[in-house]
């Protein structure tokens, strides 16, 4: 197990038993008939200065988790303990309006879609400057100066600040989004599929940028994605989610080489590799069935209908999320006995 440096052991965000259930309403009177358990008892800790990857497919709850951290909506239950730069610890889930606004200076987000995350009717100056305006930090010429610096930080020329978003490509718009996220000097940024909508080479540029910014500005990242290849290059630790639950957490190298959950194994196997000889030889694990429905998940272990190693116990009892190795957590009855393939 690699030694975690002292810097990385300080917790910045502690997520404990986070739950978010969305009611399903039917009928004229909108009666609640069930719940979509978008986030179902999720706990993890992100350390200061690290990049924590959150991986999952559609319906896994990864995006919802990120939005809960940003308090895009209220939590159903659970706590989100965040350490502010001054050392105080607050529970994001319990903040009132005023405290929440103050929190926004420390916690920010970058969105997936470069086309809908920038207001098409505002100039780049207005978009990137909005955080500063809203918090009354700068205006007038000082605002222009600060926005110019932010644009330079993300590799864009300051002269573009009078343009509107439609003038830019996807990759450039994402950079503008990044500049906006940096404006308030946050300590924590959630990147929700921040490069998924970009071409490969453009995504690579933006990923390098994010890494550089992390060093320059002492940032901690929560990197949400469905793409295992990209997350590997930027994350220190990884968590895998399936239908609202965490199924595995480990540091990146361990997760890739020694996964302990069958779903992780299947995910790793499913990623197409740019290597034709390997593609011919590899032992393909093709799951049967589709991703489970979060409004009606299977009994016991949610993954059991698709799992090649499922037993009766898996159908009957939901496994606990437990620590099996140092810093390595799994939700599987058979974690100790299964021999799963990683990437080689």
């Amino acid at each position, binding site marked *: 197990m690699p030694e975690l440096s002292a810097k990385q052991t300080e917790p910045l965000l502690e997520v404990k038993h986070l739950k978010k259930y969305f009611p399903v309403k039917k009928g004229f009177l909108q009666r609640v008939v069930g719940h979509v358990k978008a986030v179902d008892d999720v706990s993890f800790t992100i350390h200061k200065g690290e990049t924590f990857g959150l991986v999952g*497919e*559609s319906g896994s709850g990864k995006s919802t988790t990120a939005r809960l951290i940003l308090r895009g909506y209220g939590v159903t239950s659970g706590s989100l303990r965040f350490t502010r730069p001054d050392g105080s610890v607050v529970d994001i889930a319990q903040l009132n309006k005023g405290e929440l606004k103050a929190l926004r200076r420390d916690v920010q987000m970058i969105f997936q879609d470069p086309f809908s995350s920038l207001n098409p009717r505002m100039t780049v100056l207005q978009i990137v400057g909005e955080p500063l305006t809203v918090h009354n930090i700068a205006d007038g010429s000082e605002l222009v100066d600060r926005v110019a610096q932010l644009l330079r930080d993300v590799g864009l020329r300051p002269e573009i600040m009078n343009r509107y978003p439609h003038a830019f*490509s*996807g*990759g*450039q718009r994402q950079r503008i989004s990044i500049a906006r996220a940096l404006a308030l000097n946050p300590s924590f940024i959630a990147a929700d599929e921040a490069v998924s909508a970009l*071409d*490969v*080479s*453009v995504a*690579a*540029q933006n*990923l*390098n940028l994010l*890494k550089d910014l992390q060093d320059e500005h002492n940032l901690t990242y929560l990197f949400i994605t*469905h*793409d*295992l*290849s*990209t997350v*590997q*290059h930027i994350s220190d630790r990884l968590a895998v989610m399936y239908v609202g639950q965490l199924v595995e957490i480990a540091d*990146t*190298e361990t997760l*890739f080489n020694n996964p302990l959950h069958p779903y992780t194994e*299947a*995910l*790793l*196997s*499913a*990623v*197409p*590799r*740019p*290597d*034709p*000889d*390997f*593609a011919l030889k590899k032992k*393909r694990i*093709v*799951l049967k*069935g*589709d*991703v489970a429905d979060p409004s009606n998940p299977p009994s016991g272990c949610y993954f059991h209908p698709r799992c090649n190693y499922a037993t009766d116990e898996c159908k009957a009892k939901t496994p606990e999320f437990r620590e099996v190795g140092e810093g390595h957590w799994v939700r599987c009855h058979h974690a100790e006995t299964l021999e799963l393939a990683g*990437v*080689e």
Partner: protein
Amino acid sequence: MSDTHNQQAINEPLLEVNNLKTYFSVREGTVRSVDGVSFSIAKGQTTAVVGESGCGKSITARSIMQLVPKPGKIVDGSVLFHRYHDSKPTEVLNLSKAPSDGELMREVRGNDIAMIFQEPMTSFSPVHSISNQMYETLRNHRRVSKREALELSIDVLKRVNMPKPEQIALSYPHQLSGGMRQRAMIAMALSCEPSLLIADEPTTALDVTTEAQILDLLRDLRDRLGMAMMFITHNLGVVAEIAEFVQVMYLGKVVESAPVRDIFYNAKHPYTKSLLLSVPKLNERVDRLATIEGSVPDPFSIPTGCPFHTRCPEAIPGVCDVEIPETFEIDAQHTVTCHLYEGETRA
């Protein structure tokens, strides 16, 4: 395996695209989406067309099917399709010259060449059941009653390994998950047993485990039915998994064309090389990802000479920015459009 296919390419060509040019005239100028593309696909062969957004791969596919949206128009080149009956060649159709709404194209579409798209939700009519939509396709090409169409749809759904095919046939698209919709679309595309399937980014919108299932299915179908495939994607991993041949496109031109192993292990064009380097690899963790310098030029200000020269790490000043490169043969099946290979035989 590639040698047998090589023979096939010469003996049994299925689709020949020659110097195809599709231009869009808009207010700001002319966009040369497809600018002189040539390749051929043999019977039963899978060719991947790979490139980043804006390279023209989708428009190439639509040009073959004569489904180019206005104001686009095929301005030059030809698309020849070879029909076979019992493995014997019967006729050669010139698709690019046929009127887009004419009888020939309507006959070819669905029957000889089928196409599947990226977003299965928007490709299906939301108000018709799956079997109803297949009935539409089927009755365009053969005489079937609605009842026969239902049976045929169930059959075809079984062929794509759809669970509970009888139920699915009567369902509506919104009742199916993304992966199942894509399967249904593939089923619909295969219902008339076309000899060529054009797949335009069919797995891009799917989860990775579903993508693996669909790729598996396509490989299986290809082997069982002997169907040729033109697979359009920007994902090099998918190319490695499914393609036998690869055409790499950049700004409307094919810059390199080779069997799949040659592309990955013996790439010649600087763009192909840079592209391969910038793909994050699952088993090699690096600190900094390699990138391609700069960004794709604006379609209205395409650079002079070789369109890639502004970003090329191996560009020769005075040559690459002035003259358009010609296509050279590295070996029998591997061609490159690049000044660096002037010494080789012209293709």
